[in-house]
């Protein structure tokens, strides 16, 4: 199958694609309240229109562009669409296809998927949670402020004050998720395609990193984590 049909097929296969976009009349109600449209060169209406028009070349350009990565997934668009579309969910599908075809590494914002996979993905399979205090490093999160620094430093003795059971294998906040549960999560990832997606992201990121004469390692992670051309809003 040629690449172009592949794109359309992949879109069509996703159950969410049809739910997200039935028929768009370009009214712009989604863009009007979209938090991303205000601060990025981003227009969900225009994206719906491109996908709806079905020009594969344009869709391919879209999948390779920064555009699809701007959405913040707040789903405000869903509330208002007079045609019952969900542009935010369409974005989810486009991102999925972009990742599966390796197009995501073509754009600055797309390449960031590597960092997210490395940070959030690893959290899930290591801690059982997407976010865990142990990896919200103040140096990567300066915006968390001095209070967070203080809490992290004193977490073991302070957390119990809030009823947390930090690193303990029992019910409560910040506990250690038991090994059996972690194992089950890992097996779920194995059978349901979660690991496959991680591998895909890593594989294409590795290819991209080699273009920069790098490996997909911590340096590459920090690169995609901080790269900002500054040309996303005008």
């Amino acid at each position, binding site marked *: 199958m040629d690449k172009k049909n592949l794109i359309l097929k992949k879109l069509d296969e996703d*159950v969410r694609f049809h*739910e997200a976009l039935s028929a768009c009349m370009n009214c712009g109600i989604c863009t009007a309240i979209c*938090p*991303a449209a205000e*601060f990025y060169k981003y227009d969900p209406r225009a994206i719906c229109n491109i996908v709806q028009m079905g020009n594969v070349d344009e869709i391919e350009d879209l999948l390779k562009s920064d555009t699809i990565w701007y*959405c*913040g*997934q707040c789903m*405000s668009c*869903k*509330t208002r669409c007079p045609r019952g579309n969900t542009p935010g969910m369409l974005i989810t599908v486009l*991102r*999925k296809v972009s*990742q599966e075809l390796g197009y995501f590494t073509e754009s*600055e914002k797309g390449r*960031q998927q590597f*960092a*997210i996979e490395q*940070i*959030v993905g690893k959290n*899930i399979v290591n801690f*059982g*949670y*997407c*976010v*865990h*205090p142990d990896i919200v490093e103040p140096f990567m999160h300066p*915006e968390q*402020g*001095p209070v*967070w*620094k203080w*809490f992290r430093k*004193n977490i073991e*003795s*302070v*957390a119990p*004050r809030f009823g*947390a059971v930090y690193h303990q*294998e029992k*019910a409560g*906040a*910040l506990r250690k*998720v*038991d090994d*059996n*549960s*972690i194992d*089950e*999560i890992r*097996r*779920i990832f*194995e*059978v*349901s395609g*979660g690991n496959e*997606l991680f591998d895909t992201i890593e594989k294409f990121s590795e290819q991209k990193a080699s273009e920069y004469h790098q490996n997909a390692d911590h340096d590459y992670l920090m690169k*995609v984590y*901080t790269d*900002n051309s500054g040309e996303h809003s005008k």
Partner: protein
Amino acid sequence: MHKRYWNNYQKEIAEDHYFYARSCIRQTFFSGSETAFLKMMTDELGKDIFDDSRQHTCTGIGYHSDIIPLETISTVIARLFSLMTEMGYENFVPSCITSFGILTEITELWHHRPDLLEKTRELLYKATKREFNVPKNIAHPCDIIYKFREDLKKNMKYQLVNKDTGEPLKIVEHIGCHYAKAFPDRGVGGAEFPHVLVGMIESWGGSVIDYPERRHCCGFGFRNYLVQANRGYSLSNSNKKLESMAPYEPDFIVANCPGCTMFLDRWQYTVAEMEGITYDKHGHGIPVLTYEEMAGLLLGYNPWELGLQIHQIQCEPLLDKIGIAYSPEDKYKDAYGKQLFPPQKPNNLIV
């Protein structure tokens, strides 16, 4: 004059016997809130709520930042449901708004596409040999507190009233986007004027501010926060919201979403340090509370056990306004009563 179309709409919220699921963000940044909620449920309301030690994330943050396939998140959720089923519960209570949204969306999807539900059952069984029932009722903790707000009020020591003037406090309520925007009938009061926090505030004596960016997203934006290069988006959106509410001089912000609470709090600090801007007259910033913290304070819980000291915007001016008793010297003590060296002070933000 005020006629709101959804005013009389009430979602279905179970009466008792809840299975509780923790939130990644809330337990990390506001573990006191989760603890307080459970305490209110059992101590104040005498409800049965179960906190399972084997529970885990719904992977919603990963899903919305596109590293988790639909099948995976469905199956992960299915495991949570299987724990619930195993423990004999039918009412699922996720602490997180993202989880709430995800659960609603997935169960809705299963409802329309039974084949996908079957597929999920297969995957879960294949991975863990577990089986599950779809919950009868999914409600967010804020729904439950809303439902029993009058009952809680009976036990409350304080009201959302300025103790000096007797005026109701002016409060900004912020609803997490995934609470009602995606499925308006799954939130109390619909999508445009969700009543869930308004109901609490008004019952407990406060008044709500209606300001231009009331429905605007806090700006979390998942990948837009997770990656440093994108945080300008997140910051700008919070800033937009805060700038819009600032002229109304709110006494505090209350949010039902863990992310929103954290971002509205931390971005105030960031903007103060980056641009020198604070959104109140005195340079303290506007305190941001979780609804559990708000309820806990009114119930007379110790602010330092609710975890208010680990908000970056400090709450003492607010506590004084309401007249809540607290001991300043306990603020930076650890769980064992040891006085710790307090956190560093920001340059611009007054703490």
